[in-house]
């Protein structure tokens, strides 16, 4: 499995609402006894770094809270990281990550979990892009002097 593929689904899962993720993942989850929780959800702080001017030297922008969880399902180790303090969301991502790495579970999850989430995320992004575009103001400057 390529790293970028996994990065993509981890990003997608983290950007999706926890309630929707729970709804779509529910039917794919193994019985609770088959999930080995190596790390239940725990919340901590991560220092965000920025670059001055977008490409200059690094500076510490500020800390954000991050929640992480890790579990093992049938030998596959899944990690979930999410911004904020939603324990349930982090644990759902960890379970989904473990299942997605399993080649047998990937095809149904791709069709029934990742694709709908991807479409909904694209729709949300387009909606917010439209809302932003509608408020766009064109500035122009009269030529001075001549």
């Amino acid at each position, binding site marked *: 499995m390529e790293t970028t593929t996994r990065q993509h689904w981890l990003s997608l899962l983290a950007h999706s609402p926890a309630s929707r993720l729970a709804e779509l993942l529910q039917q794919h989850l193994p019985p609770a006894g088959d999930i*080995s929780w*190596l790390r239940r959800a725990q919340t901590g702080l991560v220092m965000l770094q920025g670059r001055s001017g977008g490409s200059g030297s690094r500076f510490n922008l500020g800390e954000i809270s991050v929640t992480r969880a890790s579990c093992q399902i049938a*030998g596959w180790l899944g990690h979930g990281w999410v911004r904020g303090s939603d324990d349930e969301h982090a644990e759902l991502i960890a379970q989904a990550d473990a299942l997605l790495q399993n080649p047998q579970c990937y095809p149904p999850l791709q069709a029934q979990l990742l694709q709908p989430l991807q479409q909904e995320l694209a729709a949300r992004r387009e909606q917010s892009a439209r809302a932003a575009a509608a408020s766009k103001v064109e500035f122009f400057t009269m030529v001075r002097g001549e």
Partner: protein
Amino acid sequence: MLQQAFDNMEQDCQQVFRTTLSALAEPLLPLTLPCLPAALPGLKPATSALLYTLIDQDVTLWAPALPAATLASLRFHCALRLADTPEQADFILLPAGSSLPPLSSLRAGSPEYPDRSTTILLEVEDFTPQQVEASGPGFASPRRFGATGLPPAFWTQWQANHARFPLGVDVLLISATQLAGLPRSTVVQEG
């Protein structure tokens, strides 16, 4: 497969750490650990509890060959770093039956920083028989102590280690569920 550690990592580690402090304050008095995780492959449950508590990314551990599953679990839970030789390590783990490196060769600290020394986690079978009489700081009166499964000539080496005080190494003796501290200040007489 990685192993599950404590049910509640922060609280359980704190309780085990408190017990370790007590064990060093009252040397050679076996204390039962308040909480035990599932044993790591090749180690006792109490040893696993101490490793989860004491090891982090800032210290190094040396141990004779450990099962790959044990190393993987320790890397996951404690960000374990291994030392190349016993002489470089902050902690030395000696599972039951492994041979003891010469105590005099290990890091004993310096006169300015006697704390920069090695701590040995030494697995023993049990604490029942009475082999030695121990005294020193932390003893109201001399107390008898013994452990089965100690490396040969351990007490002889210990006397040499104590003679270097305030330098020297400290030892934590570990049975399946119990722990006894042996700081370098403890005087041991055989027989």
